[in-house]
């Protein structure tokens, strides 16, 4: 049975549309408001939502997501509470949910238990930032047993061989990191992204989502001819930080604004990116 993530891509492909993927930190600024944020994102046509699991040593994140993790941890947010949060979201929404974590909280919870509880609460898969393809087999095995997606990252520094391995281990989609560096918004897109996206196509038929540094409709417009989806993280998290009283309202507005980038580029509409690149 395909996951919600896979079904989502299938539907988008049929309609000739691109995916808007949003990242937020689970439990930022607290669990109730975080649930509202996720539901508002879904309502505003966020196709897939990445739910960050806060970690005390977020080595791959810039200051915005670091602060979001600190806020969540300060409020006592942890993995069991996040799984429960997903359960509550599932009562109201079928939006595809991908858990996004560093390895240690999941190791501590137990890989097998994590996979079972993830599927039980209604999440669709997981991405682990600091789990390299070389070390990933035990995790992937448990996730497969529970029919969950595993998404891996590829970066501009990845060799062809690494890209191939990441594509083999990924289901749902492949996540392309647009540039070297930590998460965070940028004015300009990196020029390393185009060569990376070109290289990817030789190794996978999976949908490709690109992230890191995407924060404006123009970025979406620039990228859509080359990708299947775009990931926006820090810009949304920043919006939550700036509007902690009612973050749901503001992130929904932001998603609508960002999505204008998709329609700005009407030539890419109706064609799949795979066809464009082929």
């Amino acid at each position, binding site marked *: 049975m395909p996951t919600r993530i896979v079904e989502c891509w299938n539907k988008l492909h049929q309609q000739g549309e691109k995916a808007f993927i949003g990242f937020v930190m689970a439990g930022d600024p607290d669990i109730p408001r975080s649930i509202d944020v996720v539901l508002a994102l879904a309502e505003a046509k966020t196709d897939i939502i990445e739910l960050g699991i806060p*970690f*005390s*040593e977020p080595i791959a994140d810039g200051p915005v997501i670091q602060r979001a993790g600190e806020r969540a941890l300060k409020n006592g947010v*942890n993995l069991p509470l996040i799984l429960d949060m997903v359960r509550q979201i599932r009562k109201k929404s079928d939006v595809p949910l991908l858990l996004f974590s560093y390895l*240690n*909280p999941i190791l501590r919870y137990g890989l097998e238990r994590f996979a079972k509880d993830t599927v039980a609460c209604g999440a669709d898969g997981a991405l682990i*930032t600091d789990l390299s393809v070389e070390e990933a087999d035990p995790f992937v095995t448990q996730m497969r047993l529970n029919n969950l997606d595993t998404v*891996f990252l590829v970066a501009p520094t990845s060799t062809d061989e*690494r890209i191939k391995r990441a594509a083999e281990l990924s289901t749902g989609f492949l996540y392309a990191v647009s540039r*070297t560096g930590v998460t965070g918004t940028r004015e300009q897109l990196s020029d390393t992204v185009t060569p990376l996206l070109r290289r990817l196509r030789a190794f996978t038929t999976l949908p490709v989502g690109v992230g890191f540094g995407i924060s404006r409709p123009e970025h979406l417009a620039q990228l859509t001819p080359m990708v299947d989806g775009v990931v926006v993280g820090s810009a949304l998290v920043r919006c939550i930080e700036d509007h902690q009283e009612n973050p749901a309202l503001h992130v929904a507005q932001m998603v609508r604004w960002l999505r204008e980038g998709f329609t700005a580029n009407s030539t890419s509409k109706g064609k799949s990116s795979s066809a464009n690149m082929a």
Partner: protein
Amino acid sequence: MNIKPDITSEASGLTGRFGLYGGRFAPETLMQPLMELESSYLAVRTDIGFQKELDNLLKLYAGRPTPLYYASRLSEHLGGAKIYLKREDLLHTGAHKINNCLGQALLAKRMGKRRIIAETGAGQHGVASATVSALLDFQCVVYMGEVDMARQRLNVFRMRLLGAEVRAVTAGSRTLKEAISEAMRDWVTNVEDSYYLLGSVLGPHPYPLMVRDFQRVIGQEARQQIMAAEGRLPDRLVACVGGGSNAIGLFYEFLNDESVAMTGVEAGGRGFELGQHASRFHGGSPGVLHGAYTYILQDDMGQISTTHSVSAGLDYAAVGPEHAMLGDLKRAEYTARTDAEALEACRLLSRMEGIIPALESSHAIAEVIERAPSAKGQVFIVNLSGRGDKDMEILERELKL
């Protein structure tokens, strides 16, 4: 444990594993650079020209070999074991850290890098990194927790005098853990032209292997020196363990010698409550921090704990993966000494031998004070990994002389 690693083999750690521990858990952006680092390092590991250049610098610039000094007054005072001090404190920059920094900086040069990134806790690795950067003409950026910058103020100035930029890290507990995270973020961003000069046997492969190799010289010298002085092997080696580079440097050469016992001394801090110490073997459990699977201090949810030690250099939540393996195999034992014991040991060694040890090394001395009296007829070697000059402000405040 079903994997019995061959700890005595030359190949130990070559694949990045020390038994169950070690590995390479890093963001994808760093994976290929780590592999390039590994292959560059493995190439120079057996390159005679490289090793000659390094030996020359260790001898003429850093001051190797360091003496193995018989501490007769301390030994007599404790009334038991004969205590020898391996005087790494006499090296240029005041600690064993320079051994590793010279090795890695020469490697960075060969790799064509222009910029060195380093983290530091006590400031000794930062000073050594700034020193080799001056010597070999690198731009140097050192990340240091704000708390450590305050308590090791003199070392901050030394780094700046040497031309390094010291960047304050204000996240979390503002100590070594956060400094390493920030250094890794810099590296992931500037990976093209920058070399990350990690200061201990921590982090993703090949760092634990490489740093151990560059510190092996301590044990190689000590083995020859004790044979010359006593005509036999020592009964026990003692060294403090933060990440564990000075300890593994002393231990490694003796791993084959079953008669030689080894004790690593962690920071017991103020007590056994989580957050009050840095004793990974007593309050920790296996997990992944900063790229390696090893013993770490963490809570039930896998969040990394804050730590405390009077010595900034031992104040860290993970121990080097090779130590985790040696601990599991019971080849080495790991104990902890408190802040108070370390301070008292520092005072005693100063009075008995006219040698002021760093607060890190004072933990090893504290262990010896406890053990030596009941070890009549035995020979101990203690790694005096650094000198106490950097700690004067803390000592002045704590010892109230």
